[in-house]
């Protein structure tokens, strides 16, 4: 049973959950499938479903098994999987593209050079590639509103550090395994701190508390230290978004 790695797989989660897993690794296609499938399940609005989410390569449903029995959930999910190729499915509508002003390197993000070296690039080339990358919010987790973003090019498939950095500030852009994390608050991390932003992922006192949703896209535009400083009067550090229409 554990030796068979056929995907997608449907498994139960505790007493009241089901997990549809599209791969055992995060790829553009497995993440696309997870987000698109989750959106499709939400849209169907089944009686008894309490909440859904998309992780890096899976869709999760929590349901009330007294209202929606396990066998019904599993059967409906099976039918949905058969209906279409989810790995190439279009992403849901209503997503946003954010432009987030970012200082790469300097004392604000002291591990840019180290990350560039690990990627086999000059610091200048690494900044060029990272700041041109249009990355997707693959999933949100670990802390409220905190995104995992990617995939970055294969050159950025660099391992996590062996030792933790004791603390990086809110808005830190960190890099490992061809992904970014944009930190929602100050935290220790094993990922390399390559950029710094004034972005707030979670604002509990704000009407729209969560800035990002899975499937949103982000470009971390390179700005100078002076430009960055002048943008910090803005609550989001100068970040702006547009609707993705296509």
């Amino acid at each position, binding site marked *: *049973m554990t030796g068979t790695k056929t995907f997608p797989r449907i498994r139960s989660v505790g007493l*009241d959950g089901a997990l549809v897993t599209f791969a055992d690794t995060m790829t553009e296609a497995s993440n696309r499938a997870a987000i698109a499938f989750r959106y499709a399940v939400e849209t169907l609005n089944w009686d008894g479903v309490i*909440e859904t989410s998309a992780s890096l390569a899976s869709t*999760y449903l929590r349901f009330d098994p*007294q209202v929606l029995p396990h066998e019904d959930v599993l059967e409906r999910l099976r039918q949905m999987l058969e209906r279409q190729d989810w790995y190439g499915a279009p992403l849901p509508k209503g997503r946003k593209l954010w432009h987030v002003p970012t200082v790469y390197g300097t004392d604000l993000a002291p591990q840019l050079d180290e990350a560039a070296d690990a990627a086999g690039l000059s610091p200048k080339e690494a900044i060029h590639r990272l700041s041109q990358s249009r990355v997707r919010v693959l999933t*949100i987790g670990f802390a409220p509103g905190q995104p995992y973003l990617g995939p970055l090019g294969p050159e950025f498939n660099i391992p996590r550090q062996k030792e933790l950095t004791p603390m990086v500030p809110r808005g830190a852009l960190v890099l490992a395994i061809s992904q970014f994390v944009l930190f929602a608050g100050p935290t220790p991390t094993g990922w390399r701190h390559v950029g710094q932003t004034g972005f707030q992922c979670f604002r509990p006192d704000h009407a729209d508390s*969560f800035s990002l949703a899975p499937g949103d896209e982000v470009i971390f535009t390179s700005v100078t230290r002076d430009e960055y400083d002048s943008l910090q009067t803005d609550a989001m550090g100068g970040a702006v978004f547009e609707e993705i229409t296509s």
Partner: protein
Amino acid sequence: MSLRVQAIGPACTVQDLGRSGYLDRGLSRSGAADVLALYEGAALLGQSPDLAQLEMAGLGGTFEATQGLRFALTGAPMQATIDGATIAWNASHSLEPGQTLVIGAAMQGNYGYLHLGGGIDTTPFLGSRSTHLTANIGAAIQAGDVLPMGPDKGEAGKKLRPDNRFSGGLLRIVSSFQTELFDQSTLDRFTATTFQRGARANRMGMQLESDGAGFAAKGQLNILSEVITPGDIQMTGTGNPFILLPECQTTGGYPRIATVLPCDMPRAVQTPAGARVQFEFVSLDQALAADTAFRSELMRLPRRIEDLVRDPHDIPDLLSYQLISGMISATE
């Protein structure tokens, strides 16, 4: 209506049944650690279990009524007095203006609950009043705070004989999607082990300790981060189990061996440090039957309410009463 907090333990928070629907934004449910205690309080006061109440981890506080009000005490039994006179736990009482309610340390279990008639009427956030400390939603109650109360009318002087769930015991688990990462001999050893609740515990999770080797999964370090639900039993890097609680993270890379049934979570969270816990796998069908029974038990709670009379059993510490000097009146 409000209740003034004069002194308070370090880990008292406003909690209701929690906040659903934000898992995809990285926010776990939060909510009362001992859900059964919320329902018991609601039954004692004849009101909805959806109301927010005060959860007190380990130690309560000192409270002064600004107006007459009624309240109930459930969950981990704590020493409680009104103006120095001991009052019964698992019961509802009246507090007159100017009277002081003192709730001390837990005598058994971990989480005690102070329920106010009308509930605690703080401003809801995303559909719930539950504090979520790790997400910076709300904050622990501080001395000087005032707990606002919703509109209330009703009786006090009721009691409920609770199920004893304050000393650990057998917790039923179901297999989950990562159970298959553990080989059968590890699973067998896991259910044959008697654990002790460790010293590390908060609303995110509680540590379990045992002698002997840890419980590692195959490929433990290369598992893709995946959804976490409260009740999951997570193995750390060294294979030591933690039961994850309402403020757990929403995703994580440590494998989870199984999930505790929701109906056994009140017993799990109330297990004090050092007390013993064992696990038993049950089938999904058995788990559903247990869940159904638990839900009907919650619905039946209001019918189990009795009048609180001055029965010696209702008085936790009889000797603290000055029985001869007539401090207790017949109409109290």
